[in-house]
């Protein structure tokens, strides 16, 4: 690992520790990391969207035209229209002409909502309903194991559970009698589903935490040229950077303890 790569890695570790420091309390290092990520991610998306969307969908379509002709001599000159509409969006900055920005907004919202209706019906509603309408495997009802996910019992539970959960969200009829009973079963299914999703989310976050700790460990290994990351250009500067960051963190902790003790004495 080159020293410059090690410095970048140290930067990542510093920002990791700065972000984790929020577990103790809101502090200047966390605020620095928090504000930095806002700016850097905004800049990142500007660049990615420019190169990935604007260039292929607009500039490349108009590239055979001439700027002094306002690209009207381009073979796909009609792509100037959305660009002009996009520019009209900027009239939002003006108090007097901000109403003009409603035209591109209207077009954008019209197209987006128009696309959403059939796509949502197809991708979310119809496909889910289609997946529900399967023939129950009565011959193999328990599949030799109550916990089988392909048995007839599982299929029936998925079908009945989904219907019951939908009934729970139906508020036009009072949840009483048989209807109320089905709705209660629906909320049970929903709670089990929420619990399972919650557990899964927690474990995903824990795996991210493990990943950050792993990175910190790799950084330590790289600093001391351990066998796992052999470095032919290894020198004392790696350890100096390592100990500087460690000293910095320890110094901050000691400073916090001292100021805490002082505030208690007062």
């Amino acid at each position, binding site marked *: 690992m080159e020293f410059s790569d090690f410095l970048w890695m140290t930067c990542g570790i510093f920002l990791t520790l700065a972000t984790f420091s929020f577990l103790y309390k809101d502090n200047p290092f966390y605020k620095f990391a928090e504000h930095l990520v806002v700016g850097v991610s905004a800049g990142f998306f500007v660049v990615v969207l420019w190169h990935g969307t604007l260039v292929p969908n607009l500039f490349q379509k108009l590239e055979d035209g001439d700027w002094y002709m306002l690209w009207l001599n381009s073979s796909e000159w009609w792509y100037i229209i959305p660009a002009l509409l996009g520019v009209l969006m900027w009239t939002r900055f003006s108090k007097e002409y901000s109403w003009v920005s409603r035209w591109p907004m209207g077009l954008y919202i019209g197209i987006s*909502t128009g696309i959403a209706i059939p796509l949502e019906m197809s991708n979310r509603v119809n496909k889910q309903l289609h997946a529900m309408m399967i023939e129950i495997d009565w011959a193999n009802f328990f599949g030799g194991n109550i916990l089988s996910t392909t048995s007839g019992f599982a299929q029936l539970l998925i079908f009945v559970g989904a219907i019951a959960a939908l009934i729970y969200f139906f508020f036009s009829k009072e949840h009483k009698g048989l209807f109320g009973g089905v709705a209660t079963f629906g909320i049970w299914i929903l709670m089990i589903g929420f619990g399972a999703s919650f557990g899964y989310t927690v474990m995903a976050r824990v795996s991210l935490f493990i990943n950050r700790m792993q990175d910190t460990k790799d950084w330590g290994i790289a600093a001391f040229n351990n066998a796992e990351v052999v470095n032919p250009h290894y020198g004392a500067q790696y350890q100096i950077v390592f100990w500087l960051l460690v000293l910095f963190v320890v110094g901050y902790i000691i400073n916090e303890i001292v100021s805490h003790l002082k505030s208690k004495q007062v």
Partner: protein
Amino acid sequence: MKRQLPFLLVFIFGAFMTIQYYVPHESSEFVYTFLLDWTMIIGIFALALGIWSLYHVSVDKIQHKKENWIYSYVTLFGLFIMVVFGFSYKVGDSWGMYPLFVIALMALLYCLIHASISRSKGFWLGLSGAALAVSFGVAFFDDSWKLAFMTSEGLKNTMFTNFADFVLTPILATMFALLAFFIASAAYRAFRARNVLASLLLIAAIIVMLRFNPYMPFGLPELVAETSSWLMNVPNLAAQRAIVIGIGLGIVATSLKVILGIERGYMGKG
């Protein structure tokens, strides 16, 4: 003109895009792709509004010295430096005078911020002009790197990728990892087995979490893994299916309300 035309546009394009989905003809698919390109282009131009808003809010915080105003510089420099790196790339073996170019542009940003908040605008604008001249001069005379707006070489700029890999990724990953701790404390309040529903939630969550625990006693891992898989694939699937159907119907209903002009909040006031 101010309100009726936008509503008319929403209705015409909304109804058209809904109907075209069911028309199996080449021309219909062409119009669909064509208008989709339009929305992407308009959307990108709208991004400039967001960036301007971020700049404006940050400068306002600096001007009025609001709480944590000093960190607004960090946001603005972070934004600007990523944009600079994303539109430039190395040609030769060394970066040449590229650091000077970046420093000059950062100085330009600093001067522009102060030109918009300071009383001595002329002074800061003059300095901005000087910084701009330096950056132009370096860009013109230095051949070891180039600016690229129409090609995507900037995305491969090592400074850009290093900022993404060693600044953006660690902070975002750590922020998500932080949530594990906050979720745990929230779970303590939510999971107390006060009734049947809370108990169901608690048991399901514990079983799914235990699945990934390598320190379980002999024989338990298989049973826990099987139960966890069943919970994820049977009751959870039923619940998710109901939720997804509900979301889909909700989006369709809201879209219809927008197209028919019943929901008009997106147009704002005036």
